[in-house]
């Protein structure tokens, strides 16, 4: 069996165990809370009979294991229950709000890699000089504030004072564009609507950058740290003795081996955006999972909370598996082990 397939199978198996654990954990947290979720859902004016009926419907009168059993059985049918907040299936709610969040995270991820890696490489190549000091200071500032602080500051600077970007939303009014999948950048491109594509891109840049800033900083710092260590290796000294150009040494000999340890953490940071997106979305009125997630949490909407956390965790695990696969593609020790020796 090729190494990559074996790796994938192993990671999928552990992820499944972890996901079952997550479902038990979040389900347990949701069931030990004080207060009656049925009463909270129906409000203080509902009759005792109505509350009792809802308790029955939600299986709240059964033991924990029985409740969990019902939950898992429904889960296998693709049913996460009805949200008490929207009165719609939780899966439908999530399917409606998730694409906007994913699109935001995707653009942020691109920014994180496209800006973070080069900044790290430059910083390491000019280590100890003023260029390095400036980059280190800026990237450290980037990781030192939560997304919502950057969101507010960027919005104030680049949407109000200098009106470069829109203040909120995903599309301008009056374009009359009908989304297909909910991923606007994709939808507009597929339908060949260049104007709408440009508009969607224009809307996503500022929120995505606010979300990406800490990731950019993190990525640059990691790459720099790993590269500075690589620079002490004898083969770099040899490359220098050969008289190779500094840029060639940086990009080819120092960067590539430093990328492998950095990638794993960058993947974790990327996945963590699933959480921090909540902070940026609310500032820019981005119609993603944030508003829904916070609303269902405040209303103790059990099905919706469990469903949202479970979906987010599943995505988190998927991203991590993808990163592991990418690392193994980049890492020759794993890639080459496929060849018969």
């Amino acid at each position, binding site marked *: 069996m090729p190494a990559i397939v074996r790796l994938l199978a192993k990671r999928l198996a*552990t*992820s499944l*165990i*972890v*996901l079952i*654990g*997550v479902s038990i*954990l*979040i389900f347990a*947290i*949701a069931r030990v*809370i*004080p207060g009656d979720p049925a009463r909270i859902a129906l409000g203080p004016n509902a009759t005792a009979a109505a509350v009792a009926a809802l308790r029955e419907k939600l299986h709240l009168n059964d033991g924990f294991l029985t409740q969990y059993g019902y939950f898992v059985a429904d889960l296998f049918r693709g049913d996460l229950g009805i949200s008490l907040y929207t009165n719609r299936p939780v899966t439908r709610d999530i399917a409606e709000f998730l694409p906007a969040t994913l699109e935001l995270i995707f653009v942020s991820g691109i920014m994180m890699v496209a800006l973070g890696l080069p900044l790290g490489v430059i910083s390491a190549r000019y280590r100890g000089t003023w260029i390095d*000091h400036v980059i*280190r*200071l800026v990237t*450290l*500032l980037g*990781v*030192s*504030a*939560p*997304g*919502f*602080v950057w969101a*507010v*500051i960027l*919005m*104030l600077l680049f949407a*109000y*004072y200098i009106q470069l970007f829109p203040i909120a939303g995903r599309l301008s009014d009056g374009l009359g564009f009908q989304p297909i999948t909910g991923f606007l950048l994709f939808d507009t491109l597929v339908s060949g609507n260049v104007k709408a594509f440009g508009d969607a891109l224009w809307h996503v840049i500022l929120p995505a950058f606010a979300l990406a800033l800490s990731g950019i900083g993190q990525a640059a710092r990691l790459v720099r740290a790993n590269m500075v260590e690589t620079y002490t290796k004898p083969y770099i000294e040899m490359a220098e003795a050969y008289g190779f150009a500094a840029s060639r040494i940086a990009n080819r000999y120092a960067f590539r081996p430093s990328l492998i340890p950095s990638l794993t953490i960058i993947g974790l940071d990327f*996945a*963590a955006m*699933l*959480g*921090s997106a*909540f*902070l940026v979305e*609310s*500032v820019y009125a981005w119609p993603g999972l944030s508003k829904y*997630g*916070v609303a269902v*949490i*405040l209303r*103790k909407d059990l099905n919706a*909370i469990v469903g*949202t*956390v479970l979906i*987010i*965790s599943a995505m*988190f*695990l998927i991203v*991590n598996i993808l990163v592991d696969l990418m690392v193994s593609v980049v890492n020759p020790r794993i890639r080459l082990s496929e060849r018969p020796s």
Partner: protein
Amino acid sequence: MKKTLLILTRNPLSLLGLFLVTVIVLAALLADFITPFPEHVGAVVDFANFNQPPHWPNIFGTDLVGRDLFTRIVYAYRISLILAAVVLIIAVPIGVAIGLAAGYLGGWTEYVLMRITDIFLSIPPLVLAMSIMGLLEPTLTNGMIAVTAMWWPWYTRLVYSITRSEREEGYVLAAEVIGASKLHIMFREILPNCVPSIVTKMTLDFGFVILIASSLSFLGLGVQPPTPDLGSMVADGAKYLPDSWWLTVFPGLAILFAVFGFNLIGDALREILGGDA
């Protein structure tokens, strides 16, 4: 320790970090004496003086009910620092003990403990804290519980990886040969070698706990009014952008400076002490 401090003061960046943290901690400790309107920490209203831009004596302006923003930010620092300290005091020993046990004992203990750690690590940090906080009542104590619950696994992972590499070292084998107990080896032999990494990570985390706690309260899942909190101040002020910019900019920068200060010190410590935090 003395040497570490000496090196810290030589680097301009870590010096800036020390300066920021010292100012913030002193301000939080002496809040009752240095703030112009200590009574504004509570549910006070002064409608004659509401939503004013920065001016003397309200150097950061006033909020929507006329309270002094500077006063409230200093008191919010006090609460954030207490929260961060409590979270780390509880989360670090738990995480370290589990990491030591998993890394040294190995076998089934290792498998079970590390899978449990993985479960906690595979819910994005903010989402886990949000769910716990939302399901409990949003109070300061519950905020501490929520953040602690998401924080210990990071220490488990750190200590676990160090323990794994130390397990086969000569000094551990020597201790085993002379019959030292497992507890002795874990806490008296291996733990001291984890301390530099733990200290570095704790310094960085002091800032990051403040960051996460402010994020929770920004979403309305933190300390409730009238208790001053940096995150909820930004959230309340964001509705009044761009005109009342001081409502968001000052509390936002307050978070930035605090986290930045701890990061600068943590970075310098990492270089001095080594370690993989």
